[in-house]
């Protein structure tokens, strides 16, 4: 049988297994290095702040997306949820002039509500996640259109405190980014070190087995989608705070970027494996690419093509690492 010494020759292997993000970090460092070499201003305070600002929202959404993707699900509605929450909070702030502190909970609530809708359709309606959330992507966007119509919330309508929250920072780290990172860490710990979190991995890894093992699938799925929705809602608030302008198209088409970030981050699209850390790095990598290309004076028309190429490169690299790992595992598991 598999006579195995869990330690021997498995140090780097364990590292790779535990820390699939390695490849990403390398890519990230390389990219930043090259860009800075070509244009030192890329690491100037201002542009780093801009970068972190830009990353904050994607980071949040990627975090939520990870949770659902782990369960073999997917949430294509995040873009629309973000739009809805951004508009609702925005108009609530401008209309009622309610204190800024209530913005976050409000956005979270809106998002969580949408998440609950997704979860209910998927769990109780037995609708495949991709279908359900593709549906709510349309429906919720439609709702935003209804609500916003042609109107637009301008920065001037929003309380200054809120905008300050959007543009302010502590020690050079924007509040928004700080919020995202805190959330990311919290969710990371939840997934990695709490029973409920591990259940999500189990569900994604083998749903039937999870059922036999008595994992409360319904409750867990609900948790996942509500979480994803809530984070998208929070993202909406950050979006409003950052851009100050919200119209009906806020967050339009964002879902694919987020999925890309998650996948680049090494989260298995068919569930069961991946970490928020990876997803976060994926989001960061894509944002850096987006911001580096203009700085490198790369022709506008080439930028999208290069983003695509780099996405392919990133997942290919990640694949390389994991294949290595698997082979080593085999050797580790064998006995001859």
């Amino acid at each position, binding site marked *: *049988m598999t006579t*195995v010494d869990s330690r021997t020759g498995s140090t780097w292997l364990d590292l790779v297994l535990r820390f699939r993000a390695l490849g990403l970090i390398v890519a990230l460092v390389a990219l930043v290095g090259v860009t800075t070499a070509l244009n030192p201003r890329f690491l100037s305070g201002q542009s780093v702040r801009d970068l972190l600002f830009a990353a904050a929202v994607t980071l949040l959404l990627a975090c939520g997306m990870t949770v659902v993707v782990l369960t073999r699900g997917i949430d294509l509605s995040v873009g629309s949820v973000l739009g809805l929450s951004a508009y609702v909070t925005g108009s609530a702030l401008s209309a009622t002039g309610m204190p800024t502190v209530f913005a976050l909970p409000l956005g979270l609530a809106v998002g969580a509500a949408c998440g609950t809708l997704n979860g209910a359709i998927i769990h109780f309606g037995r609708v495949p996640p991709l279908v359900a959330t593709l549906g709510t992507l349309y429906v919720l966007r439609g709702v935003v259109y209804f609500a916003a119509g042609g109107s637009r919330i301008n920065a001037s309508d929003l309380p200054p405190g809120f905008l300050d929250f959007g543009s302010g920072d502590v020690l050079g780290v924007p509040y928004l980014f700080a919020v995202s990172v805190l959330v990311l860490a919290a969710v990371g*710990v939840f997934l990695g070190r*709490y029973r409920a979190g591990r259940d999500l*991995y189990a569900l994604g890894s*083998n749903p039937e087995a*999870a059922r036999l093992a008595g994992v409360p699938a319904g409750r867990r799925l609900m948790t996942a989608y509500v979480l994803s929705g809530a984070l998208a809602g929070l993202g909406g608030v950050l979006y409003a705070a950052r851009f100050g302008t919200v119209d009906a198209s806020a967050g339009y088409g964002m879902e694919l970027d987020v999925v890309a970030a998650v996948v680049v981050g090494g989260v298995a699209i068919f569930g*069961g494996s991946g970490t928020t850390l990876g997803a976060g790095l994926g989001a960061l990598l894509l944002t850096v690419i987006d911001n580096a290309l203009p700085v490198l004076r790369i022709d506008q028309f080439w930028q999208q093509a290069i983003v695509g190429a780099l996405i392919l490169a990133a997942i290919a690299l990640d694949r390389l690492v994991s294949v290595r790992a*698997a082979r080593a595992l085999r050797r580790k598991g064998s006995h001859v």
Partner: protein
Amino acid sequence: MSALARDPDPPPPVVSLTGVAKSFGAVRALRDAKLDLHAGEAHALVGENGAGKSTLIKVLAGVHRPDAGTVELDGRPVAFADTAAAIDAGIAVIYQEPALFGDLTVAENLFIGRQPKGRFGLIDRAVMNREAAALFARLGVHVDPDRPAKGLSIADQQLVEIAKALSRRARVLVMDEPTAALSGVEVERLFGVVRSLREDGAAVLFISHRFDEVEALCQRVTVMRDGAHVSTDLLADVTVEELVRRMVGRELGAMFPKQVVEPGPVVLEVEGLTREGLCRDVSFTVRAGEIVALAGLVGAGRSEVVQAVFGIEARDAGQVRVGGRGLPSGNPRAAMRAGVALVPEDRRGQGLLLDLSIMRNATITRRNRLSRFGFLVGGAERRAARDWSARLNVKYGRLQDPAGTLSGGNQQKVVLAKWLATDPKVLVVDEPTRGIDVGTKAEVHRLLSALAADGVAVLMVSSELLEVLGMADRVLVMREGRIAGELGRAEATEEAVMRLATGQEAAA
């Protein structure tokens, strides 16, 4: 009945199921099932494939809700909403098919949902791995608790399942053919543990098609047929023949109807076959009309060998020739064209398209031959499928039902059917009778020897010694990826095989 007659005042059963009925679409898996489990007893549940054994225990485990009938725990009627409820009630089940979380570590597979907690309710992995290691030690097996379950052999998977169930320290332990993929040594260790559990007062339900095991472990035995209760007796009161008659409702022919045939020319030649870390320098030949068995302990690498022969996995070194012509490495299509067929060991993972219909499964290997002018129209597939399920007595509802809805044994029959249908020159079977009931087992054996008689070269991997000894003309014994020795039909005895398999020969 007789069991209770013997016992002046029997303790109330821990579990008792009465009048249980359960249907899946047109299929009535259970009609009128009945079962009593007492504390401190090991109770055998036997029956044909599709008799309803697994379904019955799934009802007990809260997987299925019964259409009718009652489930009582300590005399109190219960209705388990889901498996969690049953688990909380102290019922642990080893299901027929291993169901592990490939992405989680072995240890987490054992403790999912009840991982040991440390500060702030965080999971304490160190403790978890230690407890897992302890469990495996108790079973006398070594599996790295910290490796992902992905890539474990079917046998190791079953061992993990066993450890999982044992770790729950349940008052009711249900085992659905836990030994199907295990060989003698593991089985003995398992029984040791189970006995001690029983002595601690646990009630054990044991489902198996191997009567030697049933007799070795159990006191009472319940027979099921067509989803209904037939009888419950003390094992001491009934003979195996009697049990078999009740199961299949008729007399059984010889278990190992071996036909002696004059072996023809060499058909399959394997030379210096090597797969990194799995098997090394394996050489042997199989002649037309011969049945050659690959014996050995679980994990000896037999499956790896046959997979390399069929070309599922590329070989790192060595030659495979069929009828003198060499086969390219890692190309099953070429092997099939050369007339090789492989019945794989893991029917769900490697054998079946569970979501597709029984018909598709039975005919997928012949999709080209059944087509007319490249089109698959008319009932060709249907006829072929019906014909072959009839030959192997597959028990099913409708040919359009998903293969996943078949009982374990019937699934195995479908896999056999789809490969026999290709009428191969070289038939390679890996654990061909895993989870198949005695009646069908005899038929499969008859079929194998009949095929051999027709000049087919048969290579058989089996963990069941009786089968190996009963069927094989020659026995190749593998140990740790190498061929430890070869035994002719005459010299092949249990002792001889086990000695080679375990490597005690040197000592002797």
